[in-house]
């Protein structure tokens, strides 16, 4: 029997607003517990929510980016349940009328493109955090996160494997960072995912009974959690069992999922429109504002990079994976005009250095202007490729721009023919044995002799001149 898994994902995208969705308190991560919870966040008696316009604009920007319908009129609703991290006893969310409906995200699977439908994206507030056994065996609550704006992006059950789910998530992750609406930090919980999973026999059209998976807080855990859950469901059915509609938690230590609550135990959230908030109206001004904040999207940019800069698709893909990296690339090219070398230097040295030192691009001491300058110096033969790496190292260590480093370290390329010839003569005289072997037909010795010349000039001799002149001298002897 051939089984097929059906997966739909609900992703909570934390929006990068300065203040909370319904209060003026700051959303910055890492403050002392409850320092960023005002009376609105802590749900003191009498307080009222006020919608953060920026959060709405970010949701609209997302809607535009995925080709969705931006609803000009959407409604906040209360989702009622009791839990200590939920101060009001209800979460303000959107239910019947969300801000974004429809749209799609395209994923690439081994050269095949697949469209994943988006059901909806709605605005809601985050809850606080419960710290168990925090003080004297008692639990405490940190409400700093309470009221942080979230955009919940709900996909259609269009995903057919954990690999597709991951491809979709990575694409969504890239998109929200590109749009500048989410920092994508999964460790800090800025991008969280729940999954609805069911299985059915291949060819069946009806959906199987689904389970909802929670606590999937990294791409790896999502993949492993899905794999386990699919296997569990298939085995259960093959053993004659039945899938129960449940919410299940993934346990990364044991690498399995555990039932948390059944459908019967599910909350009745008693959704109803929040009377404290008028309907959210997106007028023409807001729509135009969101549209003007919309950057060139990664797919479009990637295509433009291959077409305009003649980059290999893999390089274009890598360079457009982050908006600031793509910006960095284009800036550098604007200084040196050499897109291919720029691509090589960024995907090579720059990323390797960032990786090695664990830095973000914005922390790099090497600016696009400096890198462009370096590439120009290579192209006008001021320095060789080998020397350029040394110059790059110098820039990375904060020693200044390429010209300064080349001058101060005396790294300029030697193109003076007389000077190079005298070094060649010196090497020929010193390594007579090797010269003889070369002249007896051992071609590979030539490289050894070039190396000796370069070593003697500390790598600064123009390799083209060295090669030509050494060959001439050896053959004329």
């Amino acid at each position, binding site marked *: 029997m051939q089984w097929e898994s059906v997966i739909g994902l609900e992703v909570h995208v934390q929006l990068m607003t300065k203040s909370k969705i319904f209060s003026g308190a700051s959303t910055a991560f890492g403050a002392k517990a409850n320092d960023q919870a005002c009376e609105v966040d802590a749900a003191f*008696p009498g307080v009222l929510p006020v919608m953060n316009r920026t959060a709405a604009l970010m949701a609209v920007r997302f809607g535009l980016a995925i080709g969705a319908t931006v609803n000009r009129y959407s409604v906040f609703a209360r989702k009622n349940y*009791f839990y200590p991290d939920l101060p009001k006893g*209800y979460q303000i969310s959107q239910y019947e009328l969300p801000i974004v409906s429809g749209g799609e995200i395209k994923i690439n699977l081994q050269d095949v493109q697949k469209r994943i439908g988006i059901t909806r994206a709605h605005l809601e507030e985050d809850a606080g955090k419960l710290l168990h056994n925090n003080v004297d065996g008692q639990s405490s609550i940190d409400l700093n996160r309470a009221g942080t704006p979230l955009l919940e992006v709900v996909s259609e059950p269009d995903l057919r494997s954990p690999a597709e789910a991951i491809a979709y998530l990575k694409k969504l992750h890239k998109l929200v960072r590109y749009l500048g609406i989410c920092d994508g930090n999964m460790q800090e919980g800025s991008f969280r995912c729940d999954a609805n999973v069911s299985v059915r026999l291949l060819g069946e059209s009806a959906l199987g009974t689904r389970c909802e998976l929670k606590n999937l807080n990294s791409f790896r855990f999502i993949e492993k959690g899905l794999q386990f859950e699919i296997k569990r469901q298939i085995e259960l059915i093959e053993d004659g069992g039945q899938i129960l509609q449940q919410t299940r938690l993934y346990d990364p230590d044991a690498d399995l999922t555990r039932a948390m609550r059944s459908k019967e135990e599910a909350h009745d959230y008693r959704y109803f429109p929040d009377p404290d908030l008028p309907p959210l109206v997106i007028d023409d001004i807001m729509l135009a504002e969101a549209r003007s904040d919309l950057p060139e999207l990664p797919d479009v940019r990637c295509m433009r990079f291959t077409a305009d800069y003649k980059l290999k698709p893999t390089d274009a893909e890598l360079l457009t994976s982050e908006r600031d990296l793509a910006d960095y690339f284009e800036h550098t090219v604007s200084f040196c005009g050499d897109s291919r070398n720029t691509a090589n230097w960024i995907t090579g040295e720059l990323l390797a250095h960032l990786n090695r030192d664990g830095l973000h691009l914005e922390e790099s001491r090497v600016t696009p202007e400096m890198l462009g300058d370096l590439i120009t110096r290579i192209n006008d033969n001021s320095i060789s490729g080998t020397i350029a790496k040394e110059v790059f190292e110098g820039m990375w260590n904060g020693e200044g721009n390429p010209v300064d480093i080349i001058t101060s370290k005396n790294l300029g390329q030697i193109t003076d023919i007389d000077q190079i010839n005298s070094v060649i003569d010196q090497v020929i005289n010193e390594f007579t044995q090797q010269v003889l072997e070369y002249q007896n037909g051992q071609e590979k010795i030539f490289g050894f002799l070039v190396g000796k010349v370069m070593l003697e000039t500390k790598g600064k001799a123009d390799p083209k001149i060295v090669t030509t002149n050494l060959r001439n001298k050896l053959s004329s002897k």
Partner: protein
Amino acid sequence: MPYRQTLTVLSAMLKQGKISAVELVRCYLDRIQRFQNLNAFIAVDEEGALIQAESADQLRMQGEATNLTGLPIAHKDIFCTRALKTTCGSRMLENFVSPYDATVVERLAKVGFISIGKTNMDEFAMGSSTETSYFGHTCNPWDRNRVAGGSSGGSAAAVAARLVPAATGTDTGGSIRQPAAFCGLTGLKPSYGRVSRYGMIAYASSLDQGGPIAQTAEDAALLLQNMAGLDRKDSTSLDRQVPDYMATLNRSISGLKIGVPKEFFDSSVDQSILTAAHSALAEFEKLGAQLIDISLPNSAAGIPCYYVIAPAEASSNLSRFDGVRYGYRTESYGDLKEMYEKTRNEGFGAEVKHRIMIGTFALSTGYYDAYYRKAQQIRRIIAEDFRNAFYHCDYIAGPTTPTTAFLLGEKISDPVSMYLSDIFTITVNLAGIPAISMPVGFDNKGLPIGLQLTGPSFDESGLLNMTHRYQQVTDWHWQLPKEYL
């Protein structure tokens, strides 16, 4: 006797130096002390009020006083205050002190009013008699065996007994107008969105509105002037210009049409009330107004509609009282669930729990469409009734209540008969329009009778003017229960 004066007169007395703010505040504090048995107040801020009075007198000496500097008022204990605890009439908030002041409190303080104390109320404003308060019932100064009405019964009793010249109240289904009627006062429920709800503990968010309870329309205008207006902290407050309510008093009402709905003048209403209402209408006719018969055909649906929507919103609004962050928490508990259950069971009174259960039921899966959604549809129809009526008339008049103040304990165990005491006031909240109750006579037991005047959205100035004109030619509003003369 300063305590028998209106805010307007007291303002002039302070200005002319006939009395100081300290003397005035002392005078009221003495009366509050003397008539404690009315149980009109939950908390009195003697020290704070005197300090405020001293600084008011100081400001006046320095020539920095406004017309309102030093005038004492009281707030219904539903408005959050930093100075005194805010209980909302509940054990749940018995010792709760708010970290901030409600917008209404802040605005009135800013223009010079002195807050003298917090008045008693039905628990979380759920009631029509101030009998559901955890701090005991409030008595009606006209007959201490009777209720002062509710839920703003403490404010009404305090003003009626002249323990304070005026007070704030809130009205979700009649909670300003019904106690004003029972106590012989002028009470205004503004249009929804006119007065900020920030810091006013929510009962039913889509219906709640703060407003004044005063001796006269003029005083009500003075208070409303300083309560009304857009508040960025309340998304439901509206950016509508606040007219000068004092300046628009004394306009002629000649030619204005008063609609008289037949539904409000039926046999379920006390005969004495019908008689008083008719005489009041005759008085308006003498002032030049024209009476026309109208119909509000769906009024009868008001009570059932209200008792779905208000409890539904309340069930959600009151979820925050969970014993976790502030307020009452049960003494001992084994786990979280038990903590929630015991805290809420012990912290809330019977009527509150009753309404939370009704509301929770109405919002539950499988019942939402039959109750909550249906109620919202009826609400729209009721609002439409009023809109249609206002094509034919400028204002609508009728009794504020079907009876005068009832006996303490008379209706407390019969919720439905209690709910029916709001039958004429409740539809106004559902429609979001303004209405005022004014004293228009007494029944044979000497209990005050109120007439309700309803107007189109945001026409508070018209209602105040109508009432003021009526009060220029009548003296019902000057009557005081003997004991408190």
